[in-house]
Structures are given as structure tokens and as C-alpha cells.
């Protein structure tokens, strides 16, 4: 469903590449976690799938199609096949739950009757029946994220990309969200989720792809957040890791190598702050 062939993405010629010769394949109907520290290339990976950016070299295939060959006026069609969920929900504050989900159908020209039929069904899938007429600020964080998921899947995309969807939520609520994502995955949608949340990854036991400095350092099925096999000599090479589009999250250090990586990252990030 998603295939990266030797993909390199360079934002700045002088810095190290955000993604460095990535080879990766995610099959139809798979559920994959993308883990790694901030600046490891997770968001760049998702942006390349959406054709928000062009790969500097290599080829990105989505649903069998090389995205580099999709002309700009057909990019909307590519994006209709991909649902996206973010850490900050991105709901429209003045629209109700129903209108927020319906918006995704309106803008691609779905008819009123189709919208009336589909939206309640999707809201039921994410567990929000009876809350159609609430405004986003009247919902809890977990409920808002459910609305965002409903909006992402209402047009039945083949792929769902989630960029730290539980980043703003407490552990219990997060597990509820994971239940929703799992349900969507079982309906046949490929799910790729970038996350920092080790509890969730450990709980779900799905495929884990770990990125570090733009390189895949681990790709395991039914894996945990941290590798069982210690990687020697990796952590000291983090000197120039620059946090680009993700805020550093303060998470109490657990595994030794992660704590070190994080401390180093903060030192590197101070110049930019």
C-alpha cells in the first residue's frame, strides 16, 4: 500500500538528510507504528506519503502509484485516498461535530443525502453517537480526537495516517482512541501511526518501525517500543539531531538510551529556542 524505495529527503544541503535512503513497505490492511525521537524523520515520512513534499531522491509509491508522477491537479485525488489525524485534532471550532465530519464530504462534492446517511454511521463507529450537535469545545480531548478520526475516515480512505494522535491525551483516553484505530484497521484500512507513546506501542503489539536520524534502525512485527536487542554505540551519534517540526515532549526517562538521546536533543535544540 505504501512503498519507499531508497527515499532520501534533504531540507537543507548542509545538514544531514531528514530521511536517508529509506526502504520500507507497508502492506494493505497493516497496522504499523512509526517510532523514534523528535527529528528522526517520522513527520517527513508522513508528508512524503501525502505529497506535501517531494522526495529529494528515490521513489514513493502509494496504492501502487509513484507519487512523483501524480500531476498537481490530481494530488487531491491522492489525498482523498488518505485520511490524516493530528495531535492537535484540527477541528473547526464554530462547527458542530456533525458539521465538522460533513465538511470533509461537502468539499469533495458529496450530495446532501449521502452525507446525511454516512456521517451518523461513522460517528457511531468512533463512539460518538448522540453528540452530533455538540461544538468541539463542549467535548473532552478524547472525544475531539474521535471527531477528527471520524472526519479522516468518512470518505473511506484506504490509508489512515496518524501523527501522534494520543500526544495530548491521558493514558486511559489514549487506549480508547487506539481501540477506535484498531477497529478501523480491522475494517481493512491501512493504519500508519507515528508516536512517542511507549505504553500504547507495548500494549498493541503491532509492527514497529523505528527511525533514528532519518534511518530505519529497526523493523519488527508484534514488537515493543524499545528494542529487546540493545543497540551499541548509537546514542552518541545524535549530536546534530535538530528538532524540526515537533515540540520536544517532557516524558520521564525510562530506558537508558532514550533518556540520553533526549538530553542530547535538548542541548541541540537550545540554540533554536
Amino acid at each position, binding site marked *: 500500500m505504501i512503498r519507499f524505495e531508497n527515499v532520501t529527503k534533504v531540507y537543507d544541503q548542509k545538514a544531514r538528510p531528514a530521511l536517508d535512503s529509506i526502504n520500507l513497505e507497508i502492506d494493505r490492511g497493516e497496522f504499523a507504528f512509526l517510532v523514534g525521537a523528535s527529528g528522526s524523520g517520522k513527520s517527513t515520512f508522513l508528508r512524503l506519503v*501525502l505529497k506535501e513534499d517531494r522526495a529529494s531522491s528515490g521513489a514513493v509509491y502509494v496504492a501502487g502509484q509513484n507519487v512523483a508522477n501524480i500531476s*498537481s*491537479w490530481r*494530488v*487531491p*485525488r*491522492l*489525498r*482523498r*485516498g488518505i*485520511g*490524516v489525524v493530528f495531535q492537535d485534532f*484540527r477541528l*473547526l471550532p464554530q462547527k458542530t461535530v456533525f458539521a465538522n465530519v460533513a*465538511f*470533509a464530504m*461537502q*468539499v*469533495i*462534492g*458529496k*450530495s*446532501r443525502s449521502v452525507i446525511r446517511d454516512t456521517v451518523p454511521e461513522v460517528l457511531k463507529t468512533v463512539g460518538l453517537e448522540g453528540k452530533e450537535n455538540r461544538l468541539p469545545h463542549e467535548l473532552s480531548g478524547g472525544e475531539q480526537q474521535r471527531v477528527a478520526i471520524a*472526519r*479522516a475516515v468518512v*470518505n473511506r480512505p484506504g490509508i489512515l495516517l496518524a501523527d501522534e494522535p494520543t500526544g495530548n491525551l491521558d493514558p486511559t483516553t489514549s487506549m480508547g482512541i487506539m481501540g477506535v484505530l484498531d477497529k478501523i484497521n480491522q475494517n481493512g484500512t491501512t493504519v500508519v501511526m507515528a508516536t512517542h507513546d511507549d505504553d500504547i506501542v507495548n500494549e498493541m503489539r503491532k509492527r514497529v518501525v523505528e527511525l533514528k536520524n532519518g534511518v530505519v534502525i529497526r523493523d519488527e512485527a508484534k514488537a515493543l517500543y524499545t528494542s529487546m536487542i540493545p543497540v551499541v554505540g548509537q546514542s552518541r551519534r545524535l549530536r546534530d539531531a535538530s528538532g524540526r517540526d515537533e515540540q520536544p515532549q517532557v516524558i520521564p526517562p525510562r530506558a537508558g538510551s532514550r533518556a540520553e538521546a533526549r538530553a542530547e536533543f535538548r542541548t541541540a535544540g537550545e540554540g533554536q529556542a
Partner: protein
Amino acid sequence: MRLAFVLGEIGSGLRRNLSMVISVILVTFVSLTFVGAAGMLQLQINQMKGYWYDKVQVAIFLCSDGSTAPGCATGPATPEQEDNLRTLLKSPAVAQYVNDFQYESKDDAYKHFKEQFSNSPIVDSVTPDQLPASFRINMKDPEKYEIISETFSSQAGVETVIDQRQLLERLFSAMNAASLVAVSIAGVMIICAILLIATTIRLSAFSRRRETGIMRLVGASKMVIQLPFILEGVIAAVIGAALASGTLWAVARFFLEGVLSKQYPDTAFISPGQTLILVPALIGLGVVLAGISSLLTLRRYLRV
């Protein structure tokens, strides 16, 4: 559905950005009023030129009823006198200065008069008999007017020889200068309008970046995302153009027709109806202004 959606977006955009939209309307209104004023001056010049202005330079008016000139002692010009003048015009001494000439009978004169003064009440009180017949001469060199004047003003049956161009030229050059000034002011105002429309669309795109961001993600087409912004600018510009057209019509109706044409009944003024031919041009110009500036702005500020 999609149309209703786009219309709804336009409505909410106009409401949210009301003060900017009003300023766009006013700026396009003022700039297009100046454009229209220049257009009206040109229409007025054409009106005053009448039938002969662009074709001939010199007119030899023949005697008619009530002429008091010395050459008219014998009353209205007779056919013989007219023949004499025609012969004289064809004689080598005169013909070397003349490209060609035309004879305008009283009936022709009446017809042209009615066309030129169609908007003036004077047309009802004039009959063909009151208007002089004339020879209209197209000169090889308009500067040689004096020769024609000397040769013909003393002839029997000639009331007067007039260099019509000279009479009107000074007035027209003043009016052309005025329309040049109007066009220059309009140019500055149009630049103003383009920049203001660009700023308005930029603000509008910024205040709706959440919506457009989501539209992009769920795969809305470029047209659905951009059209509301373009149409917002176009609607504001068209309202401005409509106001400008209304103003020009009001000037023609209440100032030219209501005041000036009563004070100067012997001058041909344009009618309010004639200003309406400027309306499509002004509205078209407004649409083009808004379209161009919004396309340029959206390319920079609304990535799709």
C-alpha cells in the same frame, strides 16, 4: 451541493472580512469612476464633433432666410449661385488646395442637426428652412484656410466661411487634457485597488487557514478551495463598478441634462442613456482587476 457550499463560503468570507470588503468596494468605485469620467469626456467630444468634424475642415455656409451678411442682399442663395460656387471650387486656382468637397442641402443639414442635438430641446424648434445649405471642404493642407476664406466670403450667395476645426480644437484639447488627468488618477487608484484586493484576499486566506488546511487534507480540488476567495474579490469589485456606473449615469442625468444643456442649448451633450455603454466596460475592468490580483495572491498565500 458543491455550488451551495462555495456560495456559503463566499458569504461567510464576506461577512468576516466586512470592513476590508467595504474598502475594496470604495476604492474600485472611485477608481472606476475616474475611468468612466475619462470615457464620458471622450463620448462628449465625439458628440460635439458632429457629422462633419472628422471629414472636412472648412464650411462655406450659403445664404438662407434671414441672413444679414453683405453677400446675401439678394435673399437665399439661388441654384445659379450654388452652381457658380461649385465651378469656382473646381477651378484650378482653388482645386489645388482642395482634396474634395461635398454639398450639404438644407434637408441634409437638418438630418445631421437632429442627430447631433438629439438630446437637446432645441431640435423641436428648428425646421429645415432655418438651416443654411453649405459646401464642406476637405483641405489638402488645413493651414491654407485663409485662401478659401478670402476667395469665397465675397461671393454672391455666401453667408460666411468658417474653419470649424479651429473653433472646436481648443475646447477639445482642454477636454482631452481633462480626460488624461482623469485616466492618470484612475491609474493610481487602480494600483491602489489591486493592492487592496490582494491584501484583503491574503487576510481572508489567513483567517480561514484552518478550513483550507482541512480541505487540502481531505482532497478538495483546487477550484473548490480557491474559488470562494477569487469570487469574494470579484463580487466586491463588481459592486464598486456598479456604483461607479450609477454615479456616471447620475452625472449625465442631473448635471449634463438637468443643468448644462439648459444653460447652453446650442451645445450637443451626451444623453444619460449613452453613458450606459460604459457600464459593461467598467464591470469588465473590475472583474479583471479582482481576478488578476486574486490569482497572484492565491498563488503565494494559498498553497493547494
